[in-house]
């Protein structure tokens, strides 16, 4: 097992290196940071543009391989991911956004798993009863609403509530606004900010976990081994809980492990609606601003998330299902 994991991690490191290097070359080929400077009015002198570009190691007049080796050396030796065209360092910018995205996505993911899986189990046991049908209608409704619409709807609702209460219960922009040092007030402030975007991300997630978990459990609920368990003397609910649920959780666990990768894409639309500086928005910005180093750093972080998810999915499914051997 341990040997397998180590082998896997080494494999993944190689894969990640190749992927990130390719991203670097692709981004360098397609992005033109020089145009950022050349389109300024008044146009700065060419020497000063070149100096700025050289400083950020994104000068298209330097051979790509030299830029690449220089960039690689900085990343490996100094963990320095380079500068954006406006000379701001990429590393801290990405780090702060990771923190924002993690705050936003983690809470929402945990909630959507808990809510979605519980509703899935609840409705599967009551297949075709009114509870199942009603929750199915609700799920279908939320499934077809685009996140932007849901986001605006929630925001307007919150504003209406704020107006009705005459106080600011919910904030509709940003993640923090308290600047004092009282941890309790800081936490309340954070809650006031996080509630709305969390609702917007949780609902679609919960709906999809609800529908898939319901299907998985229905598949295993009628399995022969559940019948065997009942024949041994377990009641229907005991048999479902002990025998059907565990097997039906295997595919859900794999889904959850892979959802780690969604931290990286963040929630572009939700971030935009609620003006949160998360990774999703940052990714779009780097591409728009010809930020070669920024885009590469984001791609590297995305790769790490995806591969960590894949590894976690492998380990978890092997742990849950004895038929899978890791070797």
């Amino acid at each position, binding site marked *: 097992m341990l040997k397998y994991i180590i082998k896997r991690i080494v*494999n993944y490191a190689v894969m990640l290196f190749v992927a990130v290097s390719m991203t670097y070359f692709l981004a360098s080929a397609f992005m033109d940071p020089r145009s950022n400077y050349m389109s300024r009015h008044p146009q700065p002198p060419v020497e000063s543009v070149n100096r700025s570009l050289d400083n950020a190691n994104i000068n298209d007049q330097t051979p790509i391989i030299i830029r690449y080796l220089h960039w690689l050396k900085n990343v490996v030796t100094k963990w320095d991911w380079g500068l954006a065209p406006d000379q701001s360092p990429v590393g801290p910018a990405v780090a702060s956004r990771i923190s924002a995205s993690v705050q936003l996505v983690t809470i929402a993911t945990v909630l959507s798993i808990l809510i979605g899986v519980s509703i899935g189990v609840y409705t599967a046991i009551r297949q075709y009863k009114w509870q199942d049908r009603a929750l199915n209608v609700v799920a279908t409704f939320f499934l077809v609403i685009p996140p932007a619409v849901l986001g605006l709807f929630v925001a307007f609702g919150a504003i209406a509530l704020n107006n009705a209460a005459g106080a600011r219960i919910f904030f509709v922009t940003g993640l923090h606004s308290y600047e004092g040092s009282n941890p309790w007030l800081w936490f309340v402030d954070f809650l006031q900010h996080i509630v709305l975007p969390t609702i917007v991300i949780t609902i679609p997630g919960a709906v999809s976990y609800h529908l898939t978990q319901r299907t998985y459990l229905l598949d295993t609920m009628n399995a022969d*081994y559940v019948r*065997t*368990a009942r*024949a*041994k003397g*377990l009641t229907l609910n005991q048999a479902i809980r002990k025998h059907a649920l565990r*097997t039906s959780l295997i595919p859900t666990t794999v889904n959850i492990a892979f959802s780690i990768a969604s931290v990286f894409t963040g929630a572009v639309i939700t971030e935009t609606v609620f003006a949160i500086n998360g990774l999703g928005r940052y990714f779009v910005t780097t591409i728009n601003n010809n930020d070669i180093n920024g885009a590469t750093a984001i791609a590297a972080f995305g790769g790490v998330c995806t591969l960590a998810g894949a590894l976690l999915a492998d380990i978890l499914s092997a742990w849950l299902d*004895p038929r899978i051997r890791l070797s």
Partner: protein
Amino acid sequence: MTMFFRKTKSTNNSAAQNQSPKRTAAAQGDVVLSVRDLHVSFASEAGTVRAVRGMNFDLRRGETLGIVGESGSGKSVTSMSIMGLLDSNAKVTGSITFRGEELLTKTDAEMSKIRGDGIAMVFQDPLSALTPVYSIGEQMKEALVIHNPGMPEDEVERRSIELLELVGIPNAKERLKSYPHQFSGGMRQRVVIAMAIANNPDVIIADEPTTALDVTIQAQVLDVLKKAQRETGAALIFITHDLGVIAGVADQIVVMYAGRPVEQASVEDIFAHPVMPYTMGLLGAVPRPDRDKTDRLVPIPGSPVNLAALPTGCPFAPRCPLAVDACRANEPNLEPVPGRNGQSAACHRTREILDRGLTFRDVYEVGKGVASKFAGVPRERRAVVLDVQHLKKTFPLTSGGFLRRKIGEVHAVDDVTLDVREGETVALVGESGSGKSTTLLEIMNLQQPESGSITLFGQPVTKGLKRAQRRELHHSVQYIFQDPMSSLDPRLPVYDVLAEPLKALGWDRKRINDRIGELMELVELNPDQVDRFPTQFSGGQRQRIAIARALSVNPKLVLLDEPVSALDVSIQAGVINLLEDLQNKLGVAYLFVAHNLSVIRHISSRVAVMYLGHIVESGTTTEVFEHPLHPYTQALMSAVPVPDPIAERQRHRVVLQGELPSPTERIAGCPFASRCPLRLTLSEEQRAMCDSQPPALKQWQPDHVAACHFAQVS
């Protein structure tokens, strides 16, 4: 052994439950379970399905009740209502009393106290009956602890090991840690039986417990089940469609049709003189493994009833040759047959049947077969259609990694030599995994084999075969699959199914239309139904369509892979007759794969026995069945259940130990050596020979070869 079966319950058991071995013996013969006027119906889209309509029986301790019937006869639904495991949309009326307690009014929680304790169940498919994510030990423990809360850990383990040893699982202590997928099908069924008897039940219900197993494994599991019953003194309800199995197991038999018991009697009476025409038909439709074919099989005409739209009157009347107007008007009750102790039948014409002493030959029309085109032509003078010499097929076993390195080989077919001549049927028999289907597929492939040779109609199949020649061969060799449902495209009407191969031949529309009409008549279907879809036909009819499709291009050789095993007994007989007639009419040769040895004895003229990719014996059907030479063939033949209770009781059975070795192993000597009963009787030197030298096929009798160093010719 009885001491192993002390009730392990320590708490919460009433005095009545707590039987010492002595009390068990005393209680022998008491009625433990009685079913009265049981009705079960389900709401479905097609209407109310009346699955069980008036089931009655009493079950005594130590007794075995066999419930026989075809699919949809209500036998499984009966057992599930006893267990209280029916779906919630089932409507159940009547009464089921167990040790005097009414079961039908109990809640799921109350029933769960009885399930697994008083009444236990063994299901059909052992591969899916155990939860894949729990070890055998955990599942055994659950069966014990749920009824004996507070049973100490070491006692649970001791009892689990004891139970697994009883059902014949070697290394029981270590195997407790294994997971279900690490066991073979037969072994898993033993585990299920061990769990069923864990709490010394009074009633064991076995629903088709051996249907999914190979015949040699079936014999082992039946032995285990009998032993388990003997040790617990429980009553056994044995549900099956296989009359051969039931003949050897049951004391009493209930025959079910369309949800009703239609005949009930002791096993001897049912087999010796059945009264109800359906029972007669069922018995007449089964080929016998222990006798040469004397006559055609007698299929029951028509198809099984639709439970959602039952006819008025006797549900069997539409298929019954003796039906009169009274039969179509009202349904007969199960009544005692006059002059027969303990036998009852549901038939309006019981008296006439008794008076005139009618047997199934009188009731059903035994059709006349068609004389063979090749009748009177000795085998040596017939042309060789297929000649296979030392055929070999391996599949690579790859590692799971990125590069998929080859880490071994599966020797699916190792050494197969056989020949098929015009107008004859050669059967390939063997356990699952012996390479029968792979052999057929290799022949069908028309590619040069890995090793050995395939010659079709005198034309060796090699790499250099021209495209036109290959196409020619493709038309001459056709394939019929096991499952007619999945081998016919559900979205193609029958016309298109049949026209497809003809279009490939470039026939014009007029010729195709004529040919399709001809084919439909050939397989005894109504030519007007060609615009229907396969799903609108019953299983037997679908298989007829598959046969028509295979025959459309006038093949000279048809490869049949288990063509009748998915069909009910009464339907199967009709398809077998059809295959025989077509062969006689058209002179086509069959290479027939089946695991059902009775069917093979009936239909084939020659038999080749396969074991682990090798042909171990071949010869004429009579020779191989009557005087098997190879110890494996002997065991196989002795394991086949015979639908005759008297013969079944007197039979000596060679029960093979162990299981089929893995085909990935390389075996130096005889592949059968690890399980061979003959080897155990040999001297040291002889054994060494078995272990080191692979035996070649050797002629022991005229036209009878076997691959054994020490076969004994009697």
